[in-house]
């Protein structure tokens, strides 16, 4: 979540509403001014609350920079205090504006609940928001994301979709993803990535093909990995093998990350940004797919046995100076 950018946009829109109808040029001017000194444009509690969590998120991200240098114990301690600070900021924001959705969402995520517990809390939050604010409208552009004030609720839904996947509630995850794609077809939050994993898990080939076509078959790590899993689950091994080759060739470090899973921290509050085709993309996809891969117990061993896959993983590892642990050790 780029909270700083969202804050600027929110403040610009609110101020322009106060000023009455502005031309495009005037609005651009205004936005520049807001960007320069956002704090000067905060004139209600709702925006003060949003500014609070925007700052808290920046601090949160900054505090993670040295994680690589810590041992496990130090990391856990650093993580706990970082989450505690974030929770305090969320509470601060909620005191200013109890309807600050992002503060509610992040407070739940920062509480570090087990996924099944988080599920209940998120459902409750989503239900209350529906009651208070009604359904999310797609708006004039046809994409709810265009309305910066609708984004927090979309983030709640996307978090719900991912939590459904984590708690083995695949039909529910599918419904949230479908809702998100209907409300925000441009899908800035990437609900389709959660969706495609869910379709693989449900062995829904028709659904997969539909979504892949919607994506104009250009795919990415989630799509490539899902195709391998789907074909494998359907017992179409030659197709699975071809899909695995595609995954290996098209996803940077894809083979490596499948054989050497890396611990990823809680998404705060949504999936971290990544560049298309980057190692980060492969890492996020493999991380999100973990529960589905674990449900296919021989999948990783099978992939490892396919010609070239293991070598490709080792080569990526060596080229990037990572440590190699033999899979299954």
């Amino acid at each position: 979540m780029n909270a700083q950018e969202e804050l600027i946009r929110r403040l610009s829109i609110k101020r322009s509403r106060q000023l009455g109808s502005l031309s495009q040029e005037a609005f651009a001017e205004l936005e520049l001014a807001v960007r320069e000194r956002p704090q000067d444009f905060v004139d209600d509690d709702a925006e003060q609350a949003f500014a609070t969590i925007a700052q808290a998120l920046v601090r949160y991200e900054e505090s993670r920079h040295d994680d690589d240098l810590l041992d496990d114990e130090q990391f856990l301690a650093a993580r706990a205090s970082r989450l505690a600070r974030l929770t305090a900021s969320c509470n601060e924001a909620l005191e200013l504006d109890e309807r600050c959705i992002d503060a509610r969402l992040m407070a739940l995520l920062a509480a570090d609940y087990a996924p099944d517990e988080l599920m209940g809390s998120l459902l409750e939050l989503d239900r209350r928001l529906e009651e208070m604010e009604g359904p999310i409208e797609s708006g004039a552009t046809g994409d709810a994301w265009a309305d910066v004030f609708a984004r927090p609720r979309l983030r709640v839904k996307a978090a719900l979709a991912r939590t459904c996947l984590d708690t083995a509630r695949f039909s529910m995850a599918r419904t949230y993803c479908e809702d998100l794609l209907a409300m925000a077809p441009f899908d800035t939050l990437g609900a389709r990535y959660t969706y495609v994993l869910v379709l693989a898990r449900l062995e829904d080939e028709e659904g997969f093909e539909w979504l892949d076509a919607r994506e104009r078959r250009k795919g990415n790590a989630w799509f490539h990995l899902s195709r391998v899993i789907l074909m494998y689950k359907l017992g179409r091994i030659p197709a699975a093998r071809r899909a695995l080759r595609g995954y290996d060739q098209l996803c940077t470090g894809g083979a490596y990350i499948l054989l050497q899973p890396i611990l990823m921290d809680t998404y705060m509050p949504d999936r971290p940004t990544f560049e298309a085709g980057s190692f980060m993309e492969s890492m996020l996809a493999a991380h999100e797919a973990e529960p589905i891969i674990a449900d296919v117990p021989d999948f990783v061993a099978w992939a490892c046995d396919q010609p070239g896959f293991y070598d490709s993983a080792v080569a990526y590892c060596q080229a990037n100076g990572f440590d190699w642990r033999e899979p299954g050790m």
Partner: protein
Amino acid sequence: MAFDPQREDYQRMGLRFAHTLDSSSPAEATRAFASFSRRFARERDSLPQSDSDRAFHLVAIASKLIDYELPFADDAEAQKLIERGHQLLDEALSLDPRCFDAIRMKAAADKPSFEAFLEFLNEQSDEVWRTCNEQSTRILQKGTNDERALLEASLAMHPYLRWVSTQAEQALICGRNKQSIQLCLHALEVDPHDEADIRFTAALAYAKLEDAQGLATLIQNIGSKLRTRPANDAWTQLSLIALAHKTHDLQSATDLLVDLARLYPHAAETLLRQIELPEGVFARLAVKPYSEDELVLALSETTVLLQEGREPNGRGVLGAWISNEAAQMLPPAVASMIAEQMRDLMDGRGDVL
């Protein structure tokens, strides 16, 4: 009714014996049959039998060792049981190279992974089906349509039913839920009375695919054909619980769990422990319906549902939820004692079995 190898051995020999009595008078036949049980138990070799009967007998002994004794043996004993079991299966195959039970049971031990075993079962499945089906059809064509011919024909299909049951279960374990369902539906066509209880596996596979409609249809179809027991067995109930939990309908899930706990003795403890057992290599172990053992078995097979999802203690999302619910059904002291034993077991420190 699951497959009981000793019972089936007895039935096969009984049928073979009955054929030899066809030309005798009713009085002679009755007298001869009166001695059958004793001879079966003590002078088996004096009874008429084919090589395939002999092979099946060895399979039955091997099943007893591997499925019913091995789980309770200590390490030293276990090794001996395994070796003896393998010898018996090898012997069975030397008598009857088409003894599909022996072939399957050997592969279960020899194949290095679930996947490899499933692949093996997939490859041979058509031949097993053809062979059993031909034999069964031949019996029905030859025999007058009496009870004996029906039983013989049904026994001829058993090796295939066990094959396809194992195949469906392996497919479920391997995450191939659609394949598992297709196999179950095929088996149910062949065996509408579901001697193999394969509908239990189908129920779990429908829950895995979150296909509530499919499960409802299965329950309805089976219900209309089977009068032996209603669809409130632990497998079906656990599948319904999983579906309710998967839609986050926790109240329904709790209600169903309470129903299940009422049906089975000591259910709360079993639900809390969730012991994972090795699959029966001959077939799903034959246990009494609604017994404590049946719930243990059903829960063990439900592992594919219990252990799914991210859960901090490694029990799986549904597994952890059921444990918590079950703990609340027990006196707190008992619940915490079992929970502690389970923790030790998970840490690999203690030994509660």
